[in-house]
């Protein structure tokens, strides 16, 4: 189980990296943390001609909160984010969800940008981005654009990123005061791909929910934001009723996951309200 031959490029600047992607297009793959890509290379299920290793782009690592947005450099290791008090304060869901992402030794290397760009339908980070209505900054040789989560995730392992584009930043809207969050998932083992994951953020006061964000992962071909369920929650429906509505929003990939989505939404709301 060894990779097929490829040419490795190790650019030292973002411009160099973008130039390489521009030149090689579809023939190139970006190597960030490599926790998915290198496994696929070893299995010879990915066979790029050129691998563009962005790990020398130190500028892309780190996070900061600015104007109500948590801006995470694409090369930020998941483990680093998990231990960044500022990031967790702005986006407590990260602290709740990141422990479910693989294992410590894969989070030590796996990057936030790489995970988002991989676009796995069961990815916890993709779910958070979709639930919170975040976005990514995608740069290419001559331009950059911001892509919202809604527009980014097309299908399982498929995003709207062009081969020439590099995700340089991932933006999670920060939650202000008064927000409570919870994250739940059911998976075969700790750290596995989930059967269903649910993220919940809500702002409650005076015994009622004023704002809500709900999302479910691994139940469809992409992470889903559950907007009808959010509306029902703000309209004062009980957690159980909101779970029922969430179930209705989830395509019936299979009846088990369908059921889990409802159960976990109900539980996540209850947990967040507790």
């Amino acid at each position, binding site marked *: 189980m060894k990779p097929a031959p490829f040419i490795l490029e190790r650019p030292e600047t973002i411009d160099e990296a973008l130039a390489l992607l521009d030149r090689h297009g579809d023939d190139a793959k970006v190597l960030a943390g490599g926790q998915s890509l290198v496994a696929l290379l070893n299995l010879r299920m990915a066979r790029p001609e050129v691998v563009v290793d962005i790990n020398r782009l130190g500028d892309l690592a780190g996070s900061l909160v600015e104007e109500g947005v948590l801006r995470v450099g694409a090369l930020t290791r998941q483990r680093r984010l998990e231990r960044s008090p500022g990031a967790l304060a702005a986006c407590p869901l990260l602290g709740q969800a990141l422990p479910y992402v693989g294992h410590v030794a894969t989070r030590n290397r796996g990057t936030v940008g790489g995970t988002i760009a991989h676009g796995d339908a069961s990815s916890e980070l993709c779910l958070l981005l979709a639930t919170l209505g975040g976005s990514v900054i995608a740069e290419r040789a001559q331009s950059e654009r911001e892509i919202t989560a809604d527009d980014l995730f097309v299908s399982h392992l498929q995003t709207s990123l062009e081969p020439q584009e590099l995700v340089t930043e991932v933006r999670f809207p920060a939650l202000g005061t008064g927000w409570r969050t919870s994250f739940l998932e059911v998976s075969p083992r700790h750290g596995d*791909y989930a059967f269903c994951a649910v993220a919940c953020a809500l702002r409650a006061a005076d015994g009622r929910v004023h704002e809500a964000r709900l999302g479910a992962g691994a139940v469809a071909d992409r992470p889903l934001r559950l907007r009808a369920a959010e509306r029902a929650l703000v309209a004062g429906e009980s957690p159980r009723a909101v779970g029922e509505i969430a179930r209705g929003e989830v395509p019936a990939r299979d009846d088990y996951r369908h059921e889990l989505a409802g159960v976990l939404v109900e539980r996540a709301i209850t947990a967040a309200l507790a």
Partner: protein
Amino acid sequence: MTPSETAVRGFVGRALERVEDDTLLRGQGWFIGDLDPLPSTGHAAVVRSPLAHARILSVETADALAAPGVIGVVTGADVARLSHPFPSALGDAAPSFHACAVETARYVGEPICVVVATDRYLAEDAAELVRVEYEPLAVASDTATAPVVHDRSFRYGDPEAAFAAADLVVRASFRQPRSSATPIECYGVIASWEAATGSVTAWANFQGPFTLHGVAAAALGIHGSKLRLCTPAESGGSYGIKSGVYVPIVLMAVCSRALGIPVRFIEDRVEHMLASQHATERLSEVEAAFSHDGRLLGLRLDLLDDVGAYVRAPEPATLYRMHACITGAYDVQDVAVRSRVAVTNRCPTGLNRGFGGPQLYGALERTMAIAARRLELDPAELARRNLVRVEQMPYRAAAGAVYDSGDYERCLDAVLELAGYAELRAAQAPARAEGRLLGVGLACIVEPSVSNMGYISLAQTPAERAAGLPKSGNSEGVSIAIGPHGGVTVRFTSTPQGQGHRTVAAQIVADALGIDPADVDARTEADTAANPWTVSSGNYSSRFGAVVASAIHIAATQLADRLRALAAPILEAEPAEIELRDGAAHAGGSSVSLRRLVGAAHWNAAGVGGEGLALTCTYTVPIAAADPDDRINGSACYGFIADVAAVEVDPETGVVRVTSYATVHDAGRILNPLIAEGQVLGGLAHGIGAALLEEHRYDADGNLETASFVDYMPPTATELPPVRSLQIESPSPVTPLGAKGLGEGNTMSAPAAIANAVADALGVDQLELPLTHERVWRALRR
């Protein structure tokens, strides 16, 4: 001196830390992948069948041969020319097979040809350039409808009368899924054909049984003496699976012969999942006859094992390994058994920890739990009414096992206490009232150890057996020597993969010679040209504690006798009066150091005389061949295990959490409690994995859906429950040290105990392993 007295005085029975550990903790162990014994060794990559059943129309190797670094390509035609089909216990009943597919591929992953290059990267590159044309054939993907190649029926006592007298007959069907023990180190082989002598030297992480050494030699068309098989000092786990490395040993030996260079094959994980060796899937139909007061009167078992594409030695042993003790821990003499083997287009099966045990107890212990429900008896009470009683020991079971010792009821009581069984039961109703599903499951099992070499002959009819040579016993050879400076070396072929054999050997030898274990070097690297071994050597059927340890003890005792004989004239005492302790021989207040004794024996051999200070002896456990009534004492020793599993099932998600697990063992005398506990916990982890997570799934086209560690899921630290365990020691009267084996028992018991607990939580009888969240969720909705 009784065993317990030596236990107090000696090293045996003490939780000594392992001598193996320092090397391993420093990363300095020599595993197969670390060895490079011969220069210019080629690296193999195996081209494997993508189809479960297909005729091979052509194999085109020109592009591969032209690729960089390629030394050669060995095809099925070469393999057919340079080797024979493997001998099979069922003769022509099942498809014959070589080390590589020749005309027909019969499972996904079966070798089609081998590319040998200067490194593995290049070999894999070239392997992609081999073009194979296939004609797909019909796939047998369902055990129930697959061709049956073996069908034997057995009858003990009067089962018809027992069922006629029954107040209740419980009937149930079970399926034990395919799984595999997945050691973290995969197979590895380095093979070298020596043309001048027509012999092979192979290094491999083989684990025995060494019967398979003979099978490999037969396939290569050479005498066993011409196949020198060596194992490295360390092996990265096996749990049975590495018995099957004999097949790639043959394949690589053929490659070496065809290409004229030594060839190395390090199997990768996907290859291991696809094509090493699975545990059989078994379909069981059980009928159990009970009296109204819960006495088990009779049993009928109809067993069907899927052995995969070929009946590969030692199959169909999964069916027969447990046959002698097929009645488990219960006193029931009227039994009927039908044993069948089906061949499918799946990976061949073979040894995996528990070998035959999870398959048997997954059905028998579930049946007992179902019966308890029908009889409205607590499962513990039903077990108590049927367990073989201490006063019946040694107990002759219906199919011929002789349970050598044990107080099963005492173990049952102990595990109920250890688990807090009464409290667990009491907690169920209040929890249920809150909507929480708690379950408690029990398993009482007999754990055989040290297989009788004759048990597989049950696959033959008595008439067929009578026409052949009888098979019986299980032997180990041990060499022991004390050097001129006093250090002791002991060698034997137990091929350990982490069970601490060197540590325990040092304890045993130290006790016999009255020296420190640190002065004993145990060497376990197999070398069939240099070290003692027998056809039954190896690390399987939990045989170390009972047969290898016995052989070491006897060899060391014989050496001790020689030391006493040497010391007798010096100490002016009779040999029997001389005590060996603290590195010296003592008698009547005077003593002589062993160093002086052995120095004299080595350097003044003509003057001192004596028989020398190196000896080899072979110990055989006394277990006889099968009788004409199909009874056989299938193993030398029988331990007992009583387990209680407690689970909580989430009624909405189906998530099963094992909240606690208690296990009580009686494996005779414990040689090293630290190592014994490690075996218990390790075997239990395999059992819990099989209960909750592990299954090799095939689709209808015979594709393995679980060919990596992403899809095949061994338990991790987060899935395992807190475990309480206890050893009760009823020394075996069969073995000199009173020890039995204990490496597999919890792998046999845990799937049943956990399934019983989940069934209890759900209030259902019908469950299928593994108890994945989704399966349990569906069971809740039936």
